[in-house]
């Protein structure tokens, strides 16, 4: 078996985090479960947000998990890709908006 930093089998062991700190692990998973319940936003909308964030964080576990979750919720591939683009646009924008800082500094130092 080839050694890589990421192993898809590890996703199934996520719950084991609790083994080394029961209190905090349980608090996290209770919080996580609560967050994704239907609320003012539907579970479907939250799944799409999670998918977009998964891409921005470049978390392979989360991408696998929320692609599957989206399929289970009947989310189409068009909706999923639009969510990924929304995440991507914010990430690009966050880079680009720093251009203002560069411009400010440039202008300040220049005659």
């Amino acid at each position: 078996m080839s050694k890589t930093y990421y192993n898809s089998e590890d996703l199934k062991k996520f719950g084991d985090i609790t083994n080394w700190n029961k209190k905090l692990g349980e608090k996290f998973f209770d919080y996580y479960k609560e967050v994704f319940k239907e609320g003012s936003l539907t579970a479907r909308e939250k799944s799409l947000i999670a998918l977009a964030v998964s891409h921005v964080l470049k978390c392979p576990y989360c991408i696998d998990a929320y692609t599957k979750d989206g399929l289970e919720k009947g989310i189409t591939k068009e909706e999923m890709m639009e969510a990924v683009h929304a995440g991507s646009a914010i990430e690009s924008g966050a880079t680009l908006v720093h251009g203002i800082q560069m411009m400010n500094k440039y202008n300040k130092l220049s005659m």
Partner: protein
Amino acid sequence: MLKKTLHRQKKKLANSKNQLKLLSSRVFENEKLPTFKTSLQKTQNFPLKPSKLEILQINLGYMCNQICAHCHVDAGPDRKEIMTKDTLKTCLNLCKKIDVKTLDLTGGAPELNPNFKWFVEEANKIGFKDLIVRSNLTIITSNKKFEYLPEFFKSNNVHIISSLPHWTKNKTDNQRGEGVFNNSIKALKKLNNIGYGKANTNLQLDLVYNPSGAFLPGEQISLEKKFKKELKENFEIVFNNLLTITNLPVSRFLDYLIASENYDDYMETLVNAYNPKTINKLMCKNTISVSWDGYLYDCDFNQMLNLKLNSPVTHIRDLENETQINRNIRVSQHCYGCTAGSGSSCQGSII
């Protein structure tokens, strides 16, 4: 997209023995994952025993005008197994003798049985609480000779249950065949036009959602809400309930899982989602499934795996009363499909 049945392709998994062998191998070898029997034992549910018989589900034949990618029957136009009029008469005689609330007609496309019309009329005279026809919708628009169906269903108080895996064309056609979505929409409109699925009528029209791939169905209530919204907004279509049904690893869906290398993960997902709370409401407890040739099974899936009823009476001609079918329900690893998460049955999720 699938063009031929497994039987026509002479595939190894067309044979139920090979399917059962596969369902006990791989991830279930060396106790890597517990067998279904082991899981039942761990939760004190083994052996599974039937409760009161409520539903008689009759498979009128494996012939179908569609070849859906996930079909556990391996139904298609080339399948010649059709229930004869003699066997249909035996079914009717039994229904007069025993007390069942629901008669559930399935296939293949049950409408392709040449005695379908006669049988439904006779069944309606018996007066079931619920007379179900599992219609694939496209049969209604497939040929002029089936145009009679919507009015016929209405005049015989038929409760229609039809598959529609998604509210979008691509996802539906990928699972059920090119053109199925548009024809299903046409058929649904015809059914709506005569009152089916409308709130102020008793004409019940339910849709079935099967995941189009190697994943479990989401929550039934949320999916129903979304289906209703999309079908209403885009096509002015209404229906009563959405029934979410988990794909069981049988026949074509099993073949798909193997070919797409999803089998091990899918089975692990089902096993991990084993929910003992579903056990008392499993359909095998209150249903008997009758095959086209009159044999009796715990469910339609056991029928396809040729797991006949584990009782002295295995054929409908020998069945006189309910006590003859007190039995241990036959199980294998496919049963995990019905106990995963909220559970699954021909009536949708169970808890």
